[in-house]
Each structure stands twice: as structure tokens, then as C-alpha cells.
């Protein structure tokens, strides 16, 4: 006899031995807070958005942008940059919200997983774009300072020991890439950990379709 058929018979019998919760016990459970992955994804995503916004605000408040002005980069340039990053932020928050609303537990398992992963991917993409954006700005400002700004040239000529400009450029380039790289890696691992089980199950379902 097929083992699974044997199990099926027994499966029905064991219903009598299942726990029985009372009306009140179930009622109390409905009042509790969920700790589902969707809730965590929502909280973490909001934190990430806030973190990225605060980076921008901190840069403005602590006078980083003033330094740019000192070295000859106009105010219009930094305001333009802020506008672009703000538009990017709005776009992603809108996408995030749209995808988040689509997460419905009564969908099929596959659709539900797809929607959760899509929501998470939106935030991941935003962080990735933002990091690239910051890297690009850092690098371009530094290049500008090194090669075009008069302020830097003066400091350079005033110092007694002259370090070749290209060496500073190469050094700064690698340090920036390294820092952003490490940040990205940590983020990637963290993201992977959060959705590991979900990803595994989704892949398993996807494999069935091939």
C-alpha cells in the first residue's frame, strides 16, 4: 500500500487529538500584534528611507555644502542635486507604497511571494541608486577640486612637500570605492538574511514552472 495513503488515513484520525482553543483564547489572539516578515520589511524600509533622507539633511546642516561653495561650486549646483535626489526619493516611496498595498494574504502563495519580494526590491534599488549617486557626487566634486578649483591650487603651492595630484586622485578614488563597496556588501548580506527563506521558497515554486 502507498505510504502516503496510509498517512492520509491516520491524518484524519488524529483530528480528535488536536488542541481545542476556546472562544476567548482566540479572541485574545486577534488583539495581538503581528510579527510577520511583511511588517518587518515595512519597518526596515521606512528606516532606510529615513536614513537616506537624514544623510541629505545632515549634509546640508553641517555645512558640507558651504565647503563646496568655498571651493567654487555654485549654490545652484547643490540645490539642483538636492532636487534630483528628492524626486528620486518620491518616485521610490510611491513605488514602495504601490507594491506594499498589493501584498494580500488571500493571493496564491506564488503571487504573494512575488509581491513581497517586489516591495523589498524597490527599497533595495533605491538604496543602490542613492549610494551610486553619492559616490558619483563625491568623486566628481573631488575631481573638480583637484584639477579646477583655484583654492586647492593655492594650498597645494603653499605647502612645502608637493604630492603629485594624480596620486591624491587615485588614493581618494580607491578609498571612496572601498567605503561604498563595504557599505553595499553589508547591506546586501543583511537584505539576503531578511528574505532568505522567502527567496528559497519562491525559487522552489518557480522551479516547478520550468
Amino acid at each position, binding site marked *: 500500500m*502507498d*505510504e*502516503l495513503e*496510509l*498517512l*492520509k488515513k*491516520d*491524518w484524519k*484520525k*488524529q*483530528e480528535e*487529538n*488536536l*488542541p*481545542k*482553543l*476556546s*472562544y476567548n483564547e*482566540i*479572541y485574545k*489572539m*486577534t488583539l*495581538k*500584534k*503581528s*510579527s*510577520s*516578515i*511583511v511588517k*518587518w520589511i515595512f519597518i526596515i524600509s521606512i528606516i532606510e528611507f529615513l536614513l537616506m533622507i537624514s544623510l541629505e539633511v545632515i549634509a546640508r546642516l553641517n555645512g558640507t555644502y558651504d565647503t563646496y561653495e568655498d571651493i567654487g561650486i555654485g549654490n545652484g549646483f547643490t540645490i539642483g542635486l538636492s532636487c534630483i535626489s528628492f524626486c528620486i526619493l518620491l518616485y521610490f516611496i510611491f513605488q514602495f507604497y504601490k507594491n506594499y498595498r498589493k501584498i*494580500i*494574504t*488571500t*493571493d*496564491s*502563495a*506564488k*503571487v*504573494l*511571494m512575488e509581491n*513581497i519580494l517586489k516591495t523589498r526590491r524597490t527599497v533595495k534599488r533605491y538604496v543602490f541608486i542613492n549610494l551610486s549617486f553619492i559616490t558619483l557626487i563625491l568623486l566628481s566634486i573631488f575631481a573638480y577640486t583637484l584639477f579646477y578649483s583655484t583654492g586647492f591650487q593655492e594650498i597645494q603651492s603653499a605647502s612645502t612637500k608637493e604630492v603629485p595630484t594624480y596620486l591624491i586622485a587615485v588614493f581618494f578614488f580607491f578609498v571612496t570605492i572601498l567605503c561604498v563597496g563595504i557599505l553595499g556588501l553589508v547591506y546586501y548580506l543583511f537584505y539576503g538574511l531578511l528574505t532568505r*527563506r*522567502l527567496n*528559497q*521558497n519562491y525559487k*522552489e*515554486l518557480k522551479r*516547478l*514552472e520550468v
Partner: protein
Amino acid sequence: MNKELEHNFVTNLEQNQNIVHKVCRIYTNDADSHNDLFQEITIQLWKAYPKFRGDSKFSTWMYRVSLNTAITLYRKSKRRIKTSDFDSTNFRITEEEYDDEVEQQLKLMYKAVKQLNDIEKALVFLYLEDKSYREIAETMGISEVNARVKMNRVKTKLKKILNP
């Protein structure tokens, strides 16, 4: 949310709680995790309840939300014990009418099911619940043909676990 809705929900769930308990049995290994998962499923069912239109049976709707919670939404609590520590006796309650051999076989079967992955467990669960392949396919979001193919593979896998 209004009281009547809440009352209807709790009454419905109380009557159909076996479904949730069975999902918990397949996916968890100890009483604490069982209760944790039961609670999360209850919360998810309650959250989804206002949209339950009654065009399907309450129990059918419950299968979907319960399995989705177990496979996708539930974050396993740290309290859980490893599958290898699982004592299959808490699954099988001794039934006097079984002879020893069948009893032994069943114990091994339950143990084998525990070794399957989340998706395979869901398929076995729906199969044990006597669901049609069409229903299994709809719940999982795959085609009926693929559900059949996968179920056959799961049967083979179970055989392999039982007879290594």
C-alpha cells in the same frame, strides 16, 4: 472594527480551528512554536477577514491564508528546536488498533514529512486534506500539471527518505 464582525470571525475560527492546528503541526516542532504560528495565522486571518466575501467557503479561504502565513509571512521564533530533535510521538498519538509494524511505519512517515522543504510540506498537507489537484494548484499559484508532477516527486522523495 465592529463587534459583530469580530464575533462572526472568532466563532468561525473556533469551529474551524483544526485546519490551523494541522498547519502548525506540519510546520513546527514544539508546543511553543505551534502556539506562535497559530497566533500569527489568527492575526493574519483577522486582518484579511473584512475582505472575505463569502463567495468561497470560510474553510477554503482559511487554507490559503494559513498556508501563506506558514510558508511566507511567519518568522520562525528563536525558541524552535531543530528538526532532528523532533520527537514524532507528539505527532502520532498512540492508537490501540494499530499493530506495531504499521505504527512504526507511520512514525517514520511523519518524520520523513518533517524533512521536506516548506513548499513540499504544503503540497503534502493539501494532499492529506484530500484537496483536488486543481485546488492545490490554485492555492500554490502553479499549474495543475505541475502540481501533479511535483506531488509525484514528493512521493518519490519520501520513499527515498524512508528507504535510503
